[in-house]
């Protein structure tokens, strides 16, 4: 009896804790449906007639939509190019490891660990010099480099799980390496591919340091737009909340879809 009581107590504690953790998100979502007056009301208002005006405003605001489009183009573009470069490397490292592979992989990891402040100054100068500053192409090139180590490490761990007989059989049939890679190996790891893509999209979508240093109005993404709210419209909480909600919804969808592979991605494939 005491153990059942203790169990129920722990479950209740879990519910309360999880609700407390989720509360800031819930509160922001609610504030997006309030009028500006209700959003700042004290005591805080829990029940109110929802208005969709803030969401409508955000979705018809050319500035917001522009930043949204930049976010989509840059995160999708950089994920695709990172796949193009990363998958062949992951395939070779995962299915045909040599004694040098471990060294190559740790070097790849070390590039991911490099603090961004260690590379930002030359990037600003070079990007300005070759007209990549404040351009979608420039941001795609950079985010590809951020995504590449993740693609190599994660896809390597998925490729390593392919039965060797499958590849051997295709080789005996006379298929060339590119055919085996793109037509046999890649389709075999589709779930891993999807999880990796979602993680790349999340990290590119949320990145802030590089974009705020290297982009202006032509290539800035949603995190920059939201940061701008602070200076220009800091007091319009309802509008700010609606814009914030719309900015994080794609990541929530991607994140919850990739939930099972999340740990694998966050630990670069170290924890399965």
């Amino acid at each position: 009896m005491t153990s059942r009581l203790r169990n129920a107590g722990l479950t209740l504690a879990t519910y309360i804790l999880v609700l407390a953790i989720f509360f800031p998100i819930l509160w922001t979502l609610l504030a997006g449906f309030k009028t500006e007056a209700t959003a700042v009301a004290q005591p805080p208002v829990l029940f109110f007639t929802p208005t969709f005006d803030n969401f409508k405003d955000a979705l018809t605001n050319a500035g917001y939509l522009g930043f949204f489009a930049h976010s989509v183009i840059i995160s999708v573009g950089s994920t695709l190019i990172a796949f193009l470069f990363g998958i062949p490397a992951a395939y070779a490292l995962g299915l045909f490891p040599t004694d040098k592979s471990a060294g190559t992989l740790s070097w790849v990891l070390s590039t991911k660990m490099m603090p961004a402040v260690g590379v930002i100054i030359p990037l600003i100068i070079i990007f300005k010099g070759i007209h990549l500053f404040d351009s979608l192409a420039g941001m795609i090139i950079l985010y590809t480099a951020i995504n590449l180590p993740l693609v190599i490490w994660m896809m390597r761990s998925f490729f390593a799980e392919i039965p060797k007989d499958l590849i051997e059989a295709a080789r005996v049939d006379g298929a060339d390496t590119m055919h085996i890679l793109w037509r046999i190996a890649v389709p075999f790891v589709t779930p891993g591919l999807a999880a990796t893509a979602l993680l790349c999209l999340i990290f590119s979508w949320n990145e802030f340091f590089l974009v705020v240093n290297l982009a202006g109005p032509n290539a800035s993404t949603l995190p920059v737009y939201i940061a701008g709210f602070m200076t220009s419209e800091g007091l319009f909480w309802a509008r700010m909340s609606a814009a914030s909600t719309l900015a994080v919804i794609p990541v929530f969808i991607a994140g919850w879809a990739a939930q099972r592979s999340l740990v694998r991605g966050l630990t670069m494939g170290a924890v399965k």
Partner: protein
Amino acid sequence: MTMARSMRMLLIAPAIVYLAALTQAPFILTLFYSFQKWILTSPELGVSFIGFENFSYTLFQDTTFRAAVINLVIITAGIVILSLFFGLCLALLLHRPFPGQGLARSLAIAPFFVMPTVNAVVWKNLLLNPVFGFVSYFTTHMGLPRVDILAQFPKLGIITMAVWQWTPFMMLILLAGLQSVPDDIREAAEVDGANAWEEFRNITFPLLGPFIQLSVLLATIYVLQLFGEIFVATQGGPGSATTTLPYYVYETISQGNDVGTSSAQGVCAVILASIIAAFLLRLLARTFQVSKA
């Protein structure tokens, strides 16, 4: 299986060259710039080689730089330690079977998906605003004085936001760790009459060791780069209370346009990050070997 050397090169080299060009090469340039005097907005001064002058200024004269290093260490340590603690509690609670476990886990990881700037605007306004914020409504109702956390305890404010974000990260890795601890070991301990605390201390915690190590190491590497929260919530202030190394480099280049000094700061940041990572690896490896013995 083997693969022809030329084919391996063809598959691997493009990725390696790409990464080298965008990470190694710029870092070498940063090193090169750090020995130069170069102000972007004053081209008439030219660019000249000045040896270690930027470093001696940064390390021995610039008091803000020193503050930025100390702030970085305090803020990072606070975030990593607190989110490890909360993450561990949360992982232990979410590991037990209970109704709604799947939904609870999904809700608990949500903060990790929130972009840093949204995190900062939400906490700064909706929650921590001294007049209209949700938190102050509660604290004033409990009879506590009205506090403006970001103005009076700015480091605590930044740490709070980041802990909210990084607790789910810790929780995810530790939960994976708990799932890898075989249930029969724990059941055996229960049969032997171990209470919950003994079971945790003698069985779960040591087996969780490698996962704690990994989560602390990864979180430290990421949190050392914390920037968006500070940029939005405090702009490094008040004064330089929340100016960390990444934020100071940003200020030096974007407001001072000083290539040489900011590069020297960047080089120091990379060295500091490497030292902290190496130190952590050793410390953690030793701690967990001791607890296993």
